[in-house]
């Protein structure tokens, strides 16, 4: 074994932002988004008294058809890479990357777990850590967040807006009227709903005094109570903001009932000229956006990786404490984040397969005449509330 390959060095590498990002994206986001492509078809089937795709298999391994996403991916990768004549080749090739990359980058601000102390996995860590507690080895910590900056959620808005260039450029580069219409609709929809998205989170910023999702998760809205108490999560004081944000976020993912840019029955959308894996990237970007929106809502409104009543040393419930080692606590908290994200993805699929789509003008009316005034009003109400109490 080479001398540089020590546990300390390995842990240092894992704590590196790029490595953590790779682990998060390839171990959680991409698999979940891929499985969502299957889950969407299966869940919609269940909602419509059908069975859905359940036959893809590798030999005897069937897994209820989960492997359909593997079959889809193989099909898209090996399909002919067809580029129509007259398209702007550079932009045409760039557009799917622009749709996919910003969403993946935005995951950097999501706190997906607590800070892990790899040398103390078998020990209990008291709720209020005293630095240098002699019986604990707290060296080489791995922070459960890739990019911890004070402007965290602003970074998310800035980066995710770039994803819109994917759709718009695809429409522009395709040399197709329908694609261009789709691209236009995509950008107009993004502009309308981005405003509501930002404003609906304004109340959260006012209540917590922070733009940093890791801080919001770690403290909750009332500093006098434990952040692990579900009543201390932001859904309670900010329920209208949560509904507004969720609505605007679904519009941001460009899926039904807000799938105007795609508009299968009329214009097919900005990716009408795309096929094979280039189209697959648009498709995957859409599903990764679902995962991302779920992560943001789970983080900001539903306590992120917090398990109800689970502190760093065990469950605290009504004065009774059941102590747990650090490793178990971390595993539970990582699992809680995953469960919340999967649950919210499920809810988004339920909404997508329940509601009929809006007309383009109805979409604009809803965004500018209903959601925007409501988010403004809620920001005012929250501001008054924080001023008075």
């Amino acid at each position, binding site marked *: 074994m080479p001398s540089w390959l020590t546990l300390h060095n390995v842990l240092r590498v894992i704590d590196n932002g790029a490595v953590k990002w790779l682990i998060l994206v390839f171990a959680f986001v991409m698999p979940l988004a891929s499985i969502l492509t299957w889950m969407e078809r299966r869940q919609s089937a269940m*909602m419509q*008294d059908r*069975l859905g795709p359940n036959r893809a298999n590798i030999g005897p391994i069937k897994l209820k058809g989960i492997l359909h996403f593997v079959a889809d991916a193989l099909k898209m990768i090996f399909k002919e890479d067809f580029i129509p004549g007259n398209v702007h080749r550079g932009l045409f090739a760039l557009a799917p990357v622009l749709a996919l990359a910003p969403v993946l980058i935005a995951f950097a601000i999501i706190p997906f777990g607590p800070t892990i102390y790899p040398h103390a996995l078998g020990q209990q860590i008291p709720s209020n850590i005293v630095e240098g507690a002699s019986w604990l080895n707290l060296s080489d910590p791995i922070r459960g967040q890739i990019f911890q900056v004070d402007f965290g959620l602003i970074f998310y808005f800035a980066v995710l807006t770039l994803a819109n260039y994917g759709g718009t450029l695809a429409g522009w580069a395709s040399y197709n009227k329908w694609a261009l219409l789709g691209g236009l609709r995509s950008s107009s929809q993004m502009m309308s709903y981005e405003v509501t998205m930002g404003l609906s989170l304004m109340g959260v910023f006012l209540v917590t005094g922070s733009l940093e999702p890791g801080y919001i998760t770690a403290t909750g809205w009332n500093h006098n109570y434990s952040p692990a108490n579900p009543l201390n999560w932001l859904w309670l004081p900010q329920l209208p903001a949560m509904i507004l944000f969720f609505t605007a976020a679904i519009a941001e993912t460009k899926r039904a009932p807000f799938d105007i840019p795609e508009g299968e029955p009329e214009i097919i959308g900005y990716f009408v000229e795309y096929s094979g894996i280039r189209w697959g990237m648009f498709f995957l970007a859409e599903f990764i956006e679902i995962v991302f929106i779920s992560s943001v809502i789970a983080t900001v409104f539903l306590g992120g990786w917090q398990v109800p009543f689970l502190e760093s040393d065990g469950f605290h419930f009504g004065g009774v404490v059941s102590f747990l080692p650090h490793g178990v606590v971390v595993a539970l908290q990582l699992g809680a984040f995953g469960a919340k994200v999967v649950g919210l993805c499920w809810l988004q699929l339920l909404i997508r397969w329940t509601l009929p789509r809006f007309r383009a003008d109805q979409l604009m009316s809803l965004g500018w005449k209903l959601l925007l005034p409501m988010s403004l009003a809620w920001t005012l109400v929250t501001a008054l509330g924080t001023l008075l109490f």
Partner: protein
Amino acid sequence: MSHAAHDEDSHDDEGPKVLAVSGKIRTIQVHRPEPQDTSFLAATAKGLGITLKHFAKNFFLPRRKAAELGKGGAPAEAKWRNDIETVQYPEEKVQYPERFRGLHRLMLREDGAVRCVACMCCPTVCPAHCITIVPEESDSKSIEKRPAIFEIDELRCVVCGLCVEACPCDAIRMDTGEHAKPVYERATAIETKESMLSRGIKSIAVQGGEGPAWRQK
């Protein structure tokens, strides 16, 4: 009673606002709520409730047995079964109705010989000309002919059942409850005398020169 009638009358009087009339076609003004007039929240919640109910039932409850599928809705005894109607075909098969016209079969006499007397009624009546019969002398003294070759091209057959109707001796039937199998080559879609006899059973119908003797049985 009279009050209700009066209400209806007054409602008729108001009616929808007519914008234009051209012949029998009236253009009326209808009021549809715009998104800014309603938040849709109540309707959204109701719709989500409906789909959630279907999802939960189909997700948690076991499937109905294949025999209970394809009958338009769950039977009363399948209370704790889900509503999924999908039949996974090669593994699960829906029971065809009793009068379903399926693959042909040739029936047998008491002694196991073919009942067909090669009277040529079925190839004559067949609208698709899919039946080929080559007759030969029969061994039995009371029966004149029997088919040497009896072939039905299932690709040409229109499954009308006229051959069964025409048969005077209950020799050909379509009550197997199976349908013609998919094949890779056209030649294999031709049913031969042997293959149709393999599905046949002994028929109790009396035939073959016994005259009115069947009346005494």
